C-alpha cells in the first residue's frame, strides 16, 4: 500500500487520521497549529469565547440590576463602557451577553455544518441524480435570503434564541453544502483515493479516513467565517426584537436599547457595536488564516 502513497501525501495528508497512511512521508506533514499569525488572531477570539463561558471572571458588575443613581455615566475606569438608563454597567452587559449571542450563532453554524456536510457528501458521492436533486435544493435555499428564512422560522415558532439559531442555521446550510461538495469532488478524483478503494476500502472507510479529513480545511475556515456572519445576523435580528427577551443582555438587543438614548448616551450603542465589529473581523481573519494553513 505504501508504494502507492507518495503522490497522495504530496497532494495533502495534513489531516489524515491514520498514522500508517502517512508513515511514508512524515517530513511533508504540515502542522497547521504552529503559525504565529493564526495564534495571534486566535487569541482575542479565545478571549471573547472566554467571556461567554466565564463572564464573572472579566467583570464584577451585575448585568441585570443596576444602580439607578449611576445612570447615564460616560465611560470611566470604573465603567469601561459607561452605564445605561438603569445604571447598569454596559461592559458587564456586553460580557454577559456574549454567551447568548455565541450560543445562538454557534447553534446556527452547527446546524449549517451538519446538514451542509450531509448534503454536500451526498451530492459529491451519490451519483448524478443525487447531485442534481441536492444542488437544486441548495439553489432554493440560496434563492430565499437567509435573513428571511430566519424570520420565517421565527414566525412559525415563538421568537427566541433557539428558533433564531435554527433559522439562521437553515440559511447557512447552502454555503456549507457547496464547499463540502466541491472539496469532496476535488479529493475524490485524486489517485490515493482510488488506491484506497483498490486496497479494499469500503465507501464508509474511505469517506471517513480520506475524503472528509482532506476536505476539512476549507470547511473549517468556513466555520470561522460563518460564525462571524451568524453573529451579525443574530445581532441584527436581536436588534429588531426577534431574539432573547429584554432583561437578557444580548449584543443586538443592547444596541436596540441604546438606540432610544442616542442623544444622551452614545456609548450605549457605539461601544457594544465595536465589540461586534472586532469579533466578526477577527473570526474572518481566523478563517483566512485557516484556509492558507490548509492549502496544499
Amino acid at each position, binding site marked *: 500500500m505504501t508504494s502507492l502513497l507518495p503522490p497522495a501525501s504530496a497532494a495533502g495528508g495534513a489531516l489524515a487520521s491514520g498514522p500508517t497512511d502517512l508513515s511514508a512521508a512524515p517530513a511533508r506533514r504540515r502542522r497547521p497549529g504552529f503559525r504565529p499569525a493564526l495564534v495571534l488572531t486566535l487569541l482575542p477570539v479565545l478571549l471573547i469565547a472566554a467571556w461567554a463561558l466565564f463572564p464573572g471572571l472579566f467583570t464584577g458588575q451585575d448585568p441585570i440590576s443596576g444602580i439607578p443613581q449611576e445612570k447615564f455615566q460616560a465611560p470611566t475606569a470604573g465603567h469601561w463602557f459607561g452605564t445605561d438608563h438603569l445604571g447598569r454597567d454596559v461592559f458587564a452587559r456586553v460580557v454577559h451577553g456574549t454567551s447568548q449571542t455565541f450560543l445562538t450563532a454557534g447553534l446556527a453554524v452547527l446546524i449549517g455544518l451538519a446538514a451542509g456536510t450531509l448534503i454536500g457528501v451526498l451530492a459529491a458521492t451519490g451519483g448524478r441524480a443525487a447531485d442534481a436533486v441536492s444542488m*437544486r*435544493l441548495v*439553489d*432554493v435555499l*440560496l*434563492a*430565499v*435570503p*437567509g*435573513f*428571511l428564512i430566519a*424570520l*420565517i422560522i*421565527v*414566525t*412559525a415558532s415563538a421568537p427566541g434564541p433557539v428558533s433564531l439559531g435554527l433559522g439562521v442555521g437553515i440559511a447557512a446550510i447552502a454555503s456549507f453544502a*457547496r464547499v463540502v461538495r*466541491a472539496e469532496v469532488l476535488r479529493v475524490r478524483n485524486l489517485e490515493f483515493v482510488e488506491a484506497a478503494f483498490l486496497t479494499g476500502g469500503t465507501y464508509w472507510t474511505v469517506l471517513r479516513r480520506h475524503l472528509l479529513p482532506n476536505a476539512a480545511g476549507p470547511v473549517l475556515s468556513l466555520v470561522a467565517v460563518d460564525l*462571524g456572519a451568524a453573529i*451579525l*445576523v443574530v*445581532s*441584527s435580528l436581536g*436588534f*429588531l426584537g*426577534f431574539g432573547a427577551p429584554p432583561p437578557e443582555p444580548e449584543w*443586538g438587543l443592547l*444596541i436596540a436599547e*441604546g*438606540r432610544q438614548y*442616542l*442623544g444622551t448616551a*452614545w456609548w450605549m*450603542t*457605539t461601544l457594544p*457595536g465595536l465589540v*461586534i*465589529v472586532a469579533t*466578526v*473581523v477577527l473570526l*474572518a*481573519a481566523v478563517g*483566512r488564516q485557516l484556509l492558507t494553513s490548509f492549502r496544499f
Partner: protein
Amino acid sequence: MARYLLHRFGQALLVVWLAYTLIFLAVQLLPSDPVTIFLTSDSAVDQAAIDTMKAQYGYDQPLLLQYLSQLGALLQGDVGYSLTSGEAVTERIGGAIGSTLALAASALAAAVVIALAVVAAATLAPSPVLRRALANLPPLFSAVPVFWLGLVLLELLSIRLGVLSLFPDGSFLSLAVPVLVLAVHVSAPMAQVLLKSVEQVYRQPFIDVLRAKGASPVWIFCRHALQNAAGPALSILGITVGTLFAGSVITETVFARAGLGSVVLQAVTTQDVPLVQGLVLLTATVFVAVNLLVDLLHPLLDPRILKDARQGSAPALAS
C-alpha cells in the same frame, strides 16, 4: 444558444416553484392553520369566527386542494390576501416596494462605485503598506453591522452636527445617508471578489508584456485587468440580492423609512402567513431573475463560457 437559454430559464422557474412549495410545506408544519394562529395570538375568539375566516381564506380545504388552488391562483397573478388588512398581498407589497426599490437600487449603484474605488486604490496605491491596508477594507466593511453603522451616523450627523433630521424629510442627506450605510455593507463581498480576481489577472504573463510595452499602471488596470476580472464580480452580484434585501429591511428600520421593511416586520410579528409567503415568492423571483440575467451577461464578458456550454457542460450558477 437557444437551448442554453431554455435550459437556464427552465432551471430558474424550477427554483421559484420549489421555493414556493417548500414554504407551503413549511407552513403546514405550524402547530395549526394560519388563521387560527393569527386570531388566537392576541385574545380569545369564538370558534365560529375562526371557521368563517378559515373558509374565506380556503384553509378548511384538504391539503392537496389548497396547494393546487393556491398554485393555480398564483399562475393568474393572485398571491392571496393578507390576514391583517384583508388587502391583496400584491397590493400590500406593491404599495411599499417603491421606496425600498429606490433605496436598494441607489445602494447597489453606490456599492459598485465603492467596490471599484477600493479595488482601484488597493491595486494602484503607490506604497505596499497602503495597498495592504486598503485591501483589508472590504473584510472590515463586511463585519460592520448595518444597524450599528446607521445608528452611529445618526448620532454623529443629527445629534452632534445637526445636519440630518432623525426622520426622513426628503432632503438629499436623508436619502444619501441610508444609501451609504447600505452600500458599505453591500460593497464588501463585491470588493473582496473583485480584488481577488484582479490579483489573479495580475499574475498572468500578458500583464508583464503590457508593462514591457510601456503601458501605464492606470491603463493596465482600467483597460485590461478590470475587464478580465469582471466575470467573478458579476457572479457575486446575484448573491447580493439577499444582502440587499436584509440590509434594506434593517436600514429602513433604523432610519424610520417607510417601505418593505415595515411590511416584513409586521408580517412576521403578526404571523401573517399569506403575506410572508408573498414576500418569499418575491425575493426568490428577484434572486432567480438576477442570477439568470448574470448568467446571460457572462458570455458577453467571457465568450469561453458559451463554448463550454455548447460542449455539454452548463456553467454552474455563481459558483
